[in-house]
């Protein structure tokens, strides 16, 4: 009886894992397959004939290409700023003797729990009041705020192994505090810096709510263009874009696995709150 119950419970757990994996993967495969559909309309699944027409449609759509360029620039600038500030903050927060460390960490992580629409809307009101109307500047401001917690968290997670005594040792050998941090802690934090920067870029590249408030008709990010298209009519160009995103994600994953390792990465980006 006990053994039968155990077997049932374990089978149930296995089924849940299988169901979860299928739930996560099947839609992506469906979209991937549809992106090669040769029909000019959105028809029943599965497609009968295949072509690259939707990829050509993406490559010849100026709205998407302009958006892509802006999103890439925005992602790079925001990730650079957020990674720099996040790394600096993490180097201070790693010190266990820092007064009010938990409160300071909570402040740095707080943008994660402010709804992105609120960040976008409040920055819109704020920048308008200050007379800042350049959309790219506005977008960078919003994107740095939402990505900062992720870079700080990733760097902090990678610094867990670094002992204060190692830094003290460098100081006792004559290094200044800044020099000791730079020589001892920063190299140790490399995996977190890379993971945080990647996370920041990806978050910025995919952001909708903040961008919707802060962009204007001439400066649109790729996600804004995609969402507008998805709401107007569902065509398969977006399936092609999604498949390109999927391929880029796999490439990034492979790269991160080579440089940091998935196991470590899961620890650095997975730890939340």
């Amino acid at each position, binding site marked *: 009886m006990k053994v039968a119950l155990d077997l049932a419970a374990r089978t149930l757990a296995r089924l849940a894992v299988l169901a979860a994996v299928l739930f996560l993967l099947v839609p992506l495969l469906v979209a991937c397959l549809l992106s090669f559909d040769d029909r000019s309309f959105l028809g029943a699944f599965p497609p009968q004939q295949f072509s690259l027409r939707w990829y050509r449609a993406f490559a010849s759509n100026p709205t998407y290409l302009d958006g892509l360029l802006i999103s890439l620039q925005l992602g790079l600038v925001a990730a650079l700023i957020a990674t720099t500030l996040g790394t600096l903050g993490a180097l201070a927060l790693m010190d266990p003797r820092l007064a009010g460390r938990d409160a300071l960490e909570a402040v*740095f992580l707080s943008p994660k729990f402010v709804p992105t629409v609120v960040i976008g809307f409040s920055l819109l009101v704020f920048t308008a009041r200050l007379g800042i109307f350049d959309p790219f500047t506005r977008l960078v401001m919003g994107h740095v705020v939402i990505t900062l917690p992720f870079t700080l968290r990733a760097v902090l997670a990678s610094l867990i192994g670094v002992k204060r005594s190692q830094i003290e040792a460098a100081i006792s050998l004559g290094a200044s505090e800044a020099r000791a941090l730079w020589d001892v802690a920063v190299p140790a934090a490399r995996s977190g810096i890379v993971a945080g920067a990647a996370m920041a870029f990806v978050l910025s590249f995919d952001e909708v709510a903040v961008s919707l408030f802060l962009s204007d008709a001439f400066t649109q990010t790729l996600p804004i263009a995609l969402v507008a298209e998805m709401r107007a009519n569902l065509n398969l160009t977006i399936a092609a874009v999604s498949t390109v995103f999927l391929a880029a994600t796999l490439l990034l994953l492979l790269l991160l696995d080579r440089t940091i390792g998935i196991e470590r990465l899961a620890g650095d980006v997975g730890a939340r709150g």
Partner: protein
Amino acid sequence: MKRGIHLWLLAPGLLLLAMLMGGPVALLALESLKPFIPGSMRPGEGWTLAHYRELLQPAYLVYFWETFRIGLIVSTLSLLLGAPLAFAAVRSPRAAVRKGLLALLVGLLVMSLIARLYAIEMAWGSLGPLAPLGALLGFAPRHPRYAEVLVGIGLLHFTLPVVALMLVGTFRALSPRLEEAAASLGATRSDAVVSILLPLAAPGLVSAFLVALAMCISNFVAPLVLGRGVVVFTTSLMYTRFADIGNYPSGAAIGITMLILAFLVVYGLSALARRLVPR
């Protein structure tokens, strides 16, 4: 001297947050207390609580209820699926399974949410191959309220990898020796998990649930893209207040209310849970 360097390291980030988040949110809070003048971008003179009172009317409470109802269902499901997923990713005897699951979760975390929501529309929408499965959840795929199912599925796709990765951290921190000890005392494997591991993981499970709930109620894209205009979250309500009607003060009041609710869920409820579930 040491205090000096900490200050220099913390100052840029804190200054940025104060200027680009603290200041703007404070301004938004002030804006929410100003009267609205129809047809004008500028708020009126004086102070009023009218925009908050308005939110207490049944017509508006419905939106909050809708947001929380879908959010609660989705967070529960993401915990039910995320816990076995995380457990397998940490404790599966096969290294390939562990690595494969972790790669899947991290991959989804970095994959574009817009692309994933589009994929869900393609797979679960009325023309999609999974629509018959979706119909089992209560509404025919052409029924307007099927949009709720779609939004729920979209949010689950969003929260599940996050919840599972949080729980990976929780399970990693618990020694496998505990289960081995229980097994050596005669417990079956599932017994050991239910009676030893889950109670120890309770704080992690609670905070994963609350983070998922906060992610759902603050989400904007899923109802926008999959809601077909039928599912209106408070986030969407706030956006239309601003974009369609130009009623900044009312949009600000909704925003401030959402902010308070999100922080209550994440910080308030977790403090409560810590008290109820002692470590």
